[in-house]
């Protein structure tokens, strides 16, 4: 659905040449919810804005739904943009227009017939759950409601793609969740390809099926979300994941425990098996759970347990070896 080839975006700022996007190649398939993560200044916003040419790339190709955007005339680009929806961090709603008029604006922009507009507006507001707020002005809405209006107008002209520019970064966690839920629903219902940029791995975990990690204008790692979460290659990726999977054990526990402390990793189906109790029983080792966390990423579990194992030295070693074999891995934190 979206193909970026050798995409580079440079601009001049205070006399210095800055490369915001550096030779990025990216393929986003139809129906994907594709996340691009990175810290601020990594170039993810520039990359996203190149996808509808709000920023003109310095070099490279942007192909959306089979059309090379950089080769289009002004008028052709304008028509192509009607099929690329976009939502923004600060919503960017027209403050002087009501909710219904905001949505109607995008329909007008696409040259919809006047008599068809009110019906379509109603349909869209119903889809985002704001039918009762049609005559409100943006200032009268909460952040989450504003973003719903943003979504309604972005999908008004049945786009192929929805670009989300930090769409949940200005929202509280609960509202974020409801907006992500809505995006997921739209993705399923309309088979709409969604590209979102964010600095929160939590958002990626919640809805994306693929993710790219960006640093200094480059994509350093890219892949399926579960694969990236369970087996990150780059330290930056690990940094991001740690924010979701982080844990800390009190020092007191580490010092006072007499046994061996191990961290057992679980991946996919293995996490659901009762491997631990089986192993402990067979080895005559006592296990004491100190910490544990299981995340479900696209309905597949990913997690770890931190356990204190006590028993005969040999038995403990045997148990660790067995666990290592039967789970996704064991890390001995304190022998």
């Amino acid at each position: 659905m979206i193909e970026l080839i050798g995409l580079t975006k440079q601009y001049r700022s205070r006399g210095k040449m800055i490369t915001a996007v550096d030779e990025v190649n990216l393929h986003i398939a139809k129906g994907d919810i594709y996340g691009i993560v990175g810290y601020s200044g990594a170039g993810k916003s520039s990359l996203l804005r190149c996808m509808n040419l709000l920023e003109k790339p310095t070099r490279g190709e942007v192909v959306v739904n089979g059309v090379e955007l950089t080769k289009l005339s002004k008028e052709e680009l304008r028509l192509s943009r009607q099929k690329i929806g976009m939502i923004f961090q600060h919503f960017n709603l027209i403050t002087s227009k009501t909710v219904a008029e905001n949505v109607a604006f995008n329909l007008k922009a696409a040259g919809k017939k006047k008599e068809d507009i009110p019906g379509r507006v109603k349909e869209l507001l119903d889809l985002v759950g704001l039918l009762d707020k049609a005559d409100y002005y943006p200032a009268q809405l909460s952040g989450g409601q504003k973003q719903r209006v943003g979504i309604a107008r972005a999908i008004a002209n049945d786009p192929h793609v929805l670009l989300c520019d930090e769409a949940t970064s200005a929202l509280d966690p609960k509202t974020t969740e409801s907006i992500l839920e809505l995006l997921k629903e739209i993705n399923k219902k309309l088979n709409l390809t969604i590209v979102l940029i964010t600095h929160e791995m939590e958002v990626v975990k919640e809805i994306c099926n693929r993710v790219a990690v960006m640093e200094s204008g480059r994509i350093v790692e890219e892949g399926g979300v579960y694969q990236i979460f369970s087996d990150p290659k780059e330290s930056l990726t690990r940094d991001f994941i740690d924010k979701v999977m982080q844990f800390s054990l009190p020092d007191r526990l580490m010092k006072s425990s007499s046994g061996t402390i191990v961290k057992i990793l679980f991946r996919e189906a293995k996490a659901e098996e009762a491997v631990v109790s089986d192993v402990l029983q067979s080895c005559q080792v006592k296990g004491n759970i100190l910490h544990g966390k299981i995340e479900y990423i696209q309905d597949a579990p990913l997690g770890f347990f931190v356990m204190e194992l006590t028993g005969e030295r040999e038995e403990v070693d045997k148990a660790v070896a067995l666990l290592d074999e039967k789970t996704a891995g064991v890390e001995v934190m304190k022998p």
Partner: protein
Amino acid sequence: MSEWLDRYQSILPDMIKAFWETLYMVGVSMIIAIILGIPLGVLLFVTSKGLFWQNRWLNFILGVISNIIRSVPFLILLVLLLPFTFALLHNTIGPTSAIVPLSVAAIPFFARLVETSLREVDKGVIEAAIAAGAKPWLIIRGILLPEAKPGIISGLTITAISLLSYSAMAGIVGGGGIGDLAIRFGYYRYDNQVMYTTVIILIVLVQLIQFIGDWTSRKVNKR
């Protein structure tokens, strides 16, 4: 006391006539300023850097012309424009002739105020409209003007009040109106009664314009 009232009685027809002349001059100039000043202000804005009709030369030329007109003191403009007024109306005396210099002064003045209020429009909103594939004309009509409406109305208020004070100067070249009356009676003939009365009328008018302007601006502001 009765002398004082008698004086009013004799001057009243002149006052009423002058009052209507002022309203006529300011009113028509305002309409012309709106019709030409808004497009000029929009053009100044959308041809500036980073906007969708970015055009350095057009922006520069329009900017210079409106700056030149605004830098000429109104009294001088009044005189400078006499040939132009004559060419246009074959007359240089009376309120209708005063409308020409008043409009010429008001158009760039108001246009700059329109441009300033357009600059206040959130760039993100314009960007969202561009991303939606809206035509420039729709962006101007559907976003820029409605979003800047409170500011444009405030600009209209300022322009109206400036025109009112300019219209008084038009009296010097025989333009008529309240200002003319104040100068003829109050200044040339030391008639304080007429002078103070006209000043009070002007004060009330300014207050009224400001009040209506502020109220309307607040009313249309949905932010």
